[in-house]
């Protein structure tokens, strides 16, 4: 089944929460809605589910207009941030509850519940009660309940937020595998760019109720159409610097200058905003024309196997994303290298002019 939103708008208390959303989801696809808190992810999901009705626009399922159809007449499941289970029912009965409601035969229920529980690795806990389980197991139970009824549309509203990062890693991986073999449309809301990347499929970036960009996840990531898309889909946030190209020279913030290289030659004179991914800046030069900057360390955030280095000088504030562990004292002076071949160039108004790699490929 497919799901299409056509020019869907919704306003609550005079505040626009969804502004002219047009989206289309393929059967069997995994779709991520990425956006900050209050970007409209939940509002959009509620519209998809039929919990809310749009003020204007249409919602189509398999080409049929279901805009006015209430949620209980649509085949939809939802998994929430909080672990929502029936505390007085066993895990088995929790998972079975949607089937019981649908009047499915007992042996069929038995089979489906056990199958689903196995898929989510909670078959050992079927006779326990949800509150006796760990957070991860509780959320697995909630997911099993959503999956068991073969819904046409499953909505996940930041389901992993309340779990440890190790559990999150595991469940993310499992979800990719679970949905690879299904015909269900999965829609998954998250605030974390890295989660969107890890889940794959398609990504739709939402901001203040508007759809900023939508498409294949890697494509959206590597070719953001606007500064806003690049900022929203980058964790740590992409580094942005105002700059200008005049003749054969590029300057950032009127402070550092470097020679125009082959990648930027096509851009032309003018004012721009340059972006560089935190993972592209390094501590050692890798090319002769790398731009060297003297900076001081604001903080080295170490995440086990990688380091997020916050640095600044009098003109810029930058973040580096480095593999491995790099320990630095606060305010230590260091040098960092920006590869001038890996710059994003945006118009001052925000539209992308070129992304690194893409341009280079075309030239080659």
């Amino acid at each position, binding site marked *: 089944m497919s799901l299409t939103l056509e020019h869907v708008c919704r306003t609550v208390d005079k505040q626009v*929460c969804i502004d002219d959303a047009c989206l289309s989801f393929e059967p069997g696809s995994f779709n991520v809605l990425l956006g900050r808190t209050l970007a409209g992810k939940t509002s959009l999901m509620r519209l998809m589910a039929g919990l*809310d009705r749009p003020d204007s626009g249409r919602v189509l399922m398999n080409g049929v207009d279901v805009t006015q159809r209430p949620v209980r007449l649509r085949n939809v499941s939802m998994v929430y941030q909080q672990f929502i289970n029936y505390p007085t029912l066993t895990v088995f009965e929790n998972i079975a509850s949607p089937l019981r409601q649908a009047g499915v035969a007992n042996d069929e229920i038995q089979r489906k519940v056990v199958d689903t529980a196995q898929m989510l690795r909670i078959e050992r806990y079927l006779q326990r009660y949800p509150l006796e389980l760990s957070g991860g197991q509780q959320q697995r139970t909630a997911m099993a309940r959503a999956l068991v009824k073969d819904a046409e549309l499953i909505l996940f509203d930041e389901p992993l937020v309340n779990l440890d990062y190790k559990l999150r890693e595991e469940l993310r991986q499992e979800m990719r595998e679970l949905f690879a073999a299904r015909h269900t449309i999965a829609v998954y809301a998250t605030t974390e760019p890295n989660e969107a990347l890890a889940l794959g499929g398609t990504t739709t970036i939402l901001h203040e109720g508007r759809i900023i960009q939508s498409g294949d996840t890697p494509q959206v990531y590597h070719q953001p159409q606007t500064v806003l898309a690049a900022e929203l889909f980058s964790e740590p946030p992409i580094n942005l610097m105002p700059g200008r190209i005049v003749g054969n020279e590029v300057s950032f913030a009127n402070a550092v200058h470097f020679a125009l290289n082959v990648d930027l030659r096509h851009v032309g004179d003018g004012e721009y905003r340059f972006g560089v991914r935190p993972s592209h800046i390094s501590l050692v030069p890798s090319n002769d024309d790398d731009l060297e900057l003297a900076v001081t360390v604001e903080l080295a955030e170490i995440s086990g196997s990688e380091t997020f280095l916050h640095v600044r000088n009098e003109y810029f504030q930058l973040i580096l994303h480095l593999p491995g562990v790099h320990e630095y004292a606060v305010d230590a002076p260091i040098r960092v290298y920006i590869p001038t071949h890996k710059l994003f160039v945006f118009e001052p108004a925000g539209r992308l002019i070129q992304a690194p790699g893409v341009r280079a490929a075309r030239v080659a």
Partner: protein
Amino acid sequence: MNKVPNNKAWWLVLPVFLLVAFSAVVPMMTVVNYSVQDIFDQSSRYFVGADWYRQVLLDPSLHDSLLRQFIYSGCVLLIEIPLGIAIALTMPARGRWSSLCLIVLAIPLLIPWNVVGTIWQIFGRADIGLLGATLSWLGISYNYATNTMDAWVTVLVMDVWHWTSLVALLCYSGLRAIPDVYYQAARIDRASAWAVFRHIQLPKMKNVLLIAVMLRFMDSFMIYTEPFVLTGGGPGNATTFLSQTLTKMAVGQFDLGPAAAFSLVYFLIILLVSWLFYTAMTHADKE
């Protein structure tokens, strides 16, 4: 939250609307109607404007009972609120003892007003009552039927006995809602017991205290049954509170007009004072 607007839901409100109309609005309008007319029978009625109100407001016996009423409610609040807080603070937080305390506290709340009056009437009698007899055996002269002071004390003690539990239970629930970390932090900061009470327990109990104060004020301001059963308003008029005066006027003397005017004034006073309490307590430490 954003919900689907569904105007059919208004029909669900209708029963409540009708109920409120019949239970409150209609009777009150009847009272308003009586308070501005002098009615002898169905055909002869005269519009008297504010006459009844003037008469009621200038009546010295009403002034007396209003004053008594305020003193009484003031005493009730001054005793029951601190006492209730104190009981709540000393109650065990969890375990079997806390359940036992809760049950014991709940018992007085389950006894009907007139039964409370009767219990104390007998309990306080100097001849057969346990309290009265004990006091006279100890050589303390005590007679609530003849001594004004004794009557007052008895009515007050009776109310304290009956209703302090309510305050205590409310405060107890408020106290239980305070997370343990607050106490831990206070210990680390070396806060004294008083500081813990003043800066952690009291602020966190504020909401339940507000409910307690309002309930106890409204209830005590409308007290009728207990003193009526115990002393019948005596000795003299010493324990005749507002509601009893009103009843006398309306039922005893059948002065429906002044009684109606008085009812409305009574109602407005309660409304006004409750509102004052509410605003004072909710704005107390806003900045």
